[in-house]
């Protein structure tokens, strides 16, 4: 059956259609307080409305800037350590800071975007590991083999600390789960170390404790502990807590990377930082009108 334009006005079709439009209207009116509305003058007499959904896109620029500051802070911290550990010459240091200044944004864009567009406003990007791997590549390319070896040793020490923490937490989880003694905890630690994967650290940093498989440690458990081990309800709980202090270093976007007294070359442009409104700024629709900027000069002239 072919529909004609006039069929749209028949009650059977028009009623649900109008009903749906009304429903949509109500939803828009109701959810406007969760939206961020920006109004700016783009030309003489032209007003551009830029509506973005709050919680999803609101403050994405602000979050991107925060992520960029953190990423740059991590890079700068790494360079401070490179200076102490590898002792690069002025030329090597210059090469290193220049390559970092040119490439940091494009090489870490995924990490920055992951944080900026995080829909549930979580710190769920592992900035530290990403930066660490990238700086390792830059150091390998810019410095001598001997210096790179020293740097690798430095990274290994850090990895050892991370391994101790994640495995420690896994052992603590087992202690809670199975009621282990201290001697058993040490045995479980050894068995878990044998199965270590570097990816566990990233998992842990983003809020998930790697699972200690029952089969890995069952030989350490007594018969009664094995039976208790089948109780799935005794597992560790992980959750996200709102707010608090962050363990992130920071470097402004208009501040250059440095190794000792060597800064990145002046010809590499830096981002201009404009003061922006806080990321969680929200505005109601009726607040739009007073915010419209009216230019002094007469637009008709």
């Amino acid at each position: 059956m072919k529909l004609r334009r006039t069929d749209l006005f028949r009650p059977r079709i028009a009623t649900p259609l109008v009903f749906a439009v009304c429903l949509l209207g109500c939803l828009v009116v109701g959810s406007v307080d969760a939206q961020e509305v920006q109004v700016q003058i783009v030309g003489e007499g032209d007003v551009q409305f830029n509506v973005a959904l709050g919680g999803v896109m609101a403050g994405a620029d602000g979050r991107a800037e925060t992520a960029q500051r953190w990423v740059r802070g991590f890079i700068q911290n790494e360079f401070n350590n490179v200076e102490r550990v590898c002792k690069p010459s002025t030329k090597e240091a210059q090469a290193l800071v220049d390559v970092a200044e040119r490439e940091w944004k494009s090489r870490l864009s995924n990490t920055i975007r992951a944080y900026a567009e995080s829909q549930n406003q979580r710190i769920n990007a592992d900035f530290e590991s990403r930066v660490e791997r990238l700086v390792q590549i830059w150091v390998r390319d810019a410095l001598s083999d001997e210096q790179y070896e020293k740097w690798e040793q430095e990274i290994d020490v850090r990895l050892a600390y991370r391994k101790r923490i994640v495995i420690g937490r896994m052992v603590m989880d087992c202690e809670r789960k199975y009621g282990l003694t201290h001697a058993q905890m040490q045995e479980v630690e050894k068995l878990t170390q044998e199965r270590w994967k570097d990816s566990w650290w990233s998992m842990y940093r983003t809020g998930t404790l790697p699972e200690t498989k029952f089969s890995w440690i069952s030989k350490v458990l007594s018969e009664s502990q094995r039976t208790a081990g089948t109780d799935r309800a005794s597992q560790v709980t992980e959750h996200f807590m709102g707010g608090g202090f962050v363990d992130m270093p920071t470097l402004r976007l208009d501040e250059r990377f440095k190794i000792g007294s060597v800064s990145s070359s002046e010809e590499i442009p830096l981002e201009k930082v404009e003061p922006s409104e806080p990321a969680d700024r929200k505005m109601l629709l009726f607040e739009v009108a007073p915010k419209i900027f009216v230019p002094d000069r007469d637009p008709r002239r």
Partner: protein
Amino acid sequence: MSILHSFRLLTQIPCYPALILVVFLAHPSTAQQTGKIPNALNRNQPEAVEDPDPKKGGDPPMMQFEMEPERWSEMAYGTLGGTRATFEQSLRRRVRKTLNRIEQLCGISEDVRIKVNATADLEFQRLDADITALVSEAPRRPTQQQYQDFYQKLWALISPFQPTAQWGPPGQENRNKALWEKVLHSNLSEDHQEIISNDQRQRSEYNNRVQRLETLLKVSRVLGLDSKQLGILEKIADANPAAWISLESVWTTLAAMPESQQREYFTETQRIRLSRPLEYTNDLQPVMNWNQPE
């Protein structure tokens, strides 16, 4: 013409204005604006709100709803980590794990095991009966003072069952032991009790050490410590474990360190960073619930 035609057709539908009205009223934004759930959709029975009598001069009630005994009961079990059923389950699990650990450390007879399990069962039943009896006398519309007084009574009842950090410093458990724990310890010899106590201390130390290391790595992340500094600060952390519980506490401790000491451990850049406060975020941060045994 077509628009006019369509409007004419639409106005002929008798249910259309009613539909718009219902949708408008049902929408949460409308409810928020008026501050009420629309009467047409409100399934809750209106509660009788008794205004405090100003002539009596008493304090106003703390809340605008009645605290039914069930609500007090839910609050009591909520403090113990969930509902009545989850508390019963977790209590059994805790008893079982404790017995399994002791069995592993120094052995435990089947008689003691049965006795402790039976005590825990009876204790749960008694607690449940006590809570039911107490909440039946609870004030329905308590003032702030009445609420506090009653909560104290409730707390006295439930505190022995409150889960505390298993690996906190030994001897710092500020709670009365549950009856099943007392029965268990009375059935253990002094030698066995010492073995168990030593094991608890070692487990506690293991867990605290992991926590200290984690705080150390957080500090390292902000300041950019190298491997040598990590080694030095780990020793400092082991010497003063209380300060290394959280990033905030250790930041305050390190910032308050004498300048000569700071120069010994940190570079100039790190010292400047240390003099500034930590960055704050409103974002959600991952937390693992390891400090609360079930």
